């Protein structure tokens, strides 16, 4: 029987608590022997998900963010949930990245989901009484002995 390796962390949906999520991620990912670079990637992706919960989910009301870390043999899945209002992403929205745009066209904002996708191996967004973002990163074979 494999032991359960699930860690969960619940914090208030406030800007000053997002670094606690990064600290926990750092502890867990180091334990799993992810590379420095992968850990930095995951830190950003997870923070983007948390920032969204802080900024968009609760419209200024109190709320919380629930983060679950699931360590498997060769990947780490991080689920970031809020219990606030949900949203739908416009399909026809132009790409939020700045590539190929002029200085007049670029805009601050809208990069969060784009970065999560660029930094993780898998990103799933579900809406069920709030927003649930599942971020997954595979660990390279070579990292095991790093």
């Amino acid at each position: 029987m494999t032991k359960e390796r699930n860690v969960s962390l619940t914090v208030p949906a406030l800007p000053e608590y997002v670094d606690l999520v990064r600290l926990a991620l750092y502890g867990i990912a180091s334990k799993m022997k992810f590379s420095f670079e992968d850990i930095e990637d995951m830190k950003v992706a997870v923070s983007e998900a948390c920032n969204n919960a802080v900024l968009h989910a609760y419209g200024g009301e109190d709320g919380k963010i629930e983060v679950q870390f699931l360590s498997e043999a060769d990947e780490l899945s991080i689920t970031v949930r809020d219990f606030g209002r949900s949203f739908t992403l416009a399909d026809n929205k132009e790409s939020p990245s700045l590539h190929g745009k002029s200085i007049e066209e670029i805009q601050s904002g809208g990069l969060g989901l784009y970065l999560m996708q660029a930094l993780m191996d898998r990103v799933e967004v579900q809406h069920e009484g709030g927003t649930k973002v599942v971020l997954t990163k595979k660990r390279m074979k070579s990292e095991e002995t790093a």
Partner: protein
Amino acid sequence: MVTNKFTLRTENREGQTIVFVGGEFDLEVATQMRAAMEPLIELADRRLTLNLQDLKYIDSTGIGILISVVKARHARNAPFDVEHVPTHIRKLFDMTGITPFLAKAE
């Protein structure tokens, strides 16, 4: 155990203002950073430079603020650049596509 507290320090040189940004530049410090940059953006006759050598972390919040600065300086026809970008931060700049807007004539 050491976390990377956000640090902000401004240095005035001949015709240039250098802002040293260190530690974690995240949502928690966004307001502080915007407030610090606001008056400096207005000084259109001075070169404005961000030195990122001690920057440990940035995400779309910080990159969003950089984009605002880029646009505001451009609108004032005033020079802005970023120097000493650590490798893993550079990767995020490249990924989002902000790099060419931060170029420093080297």
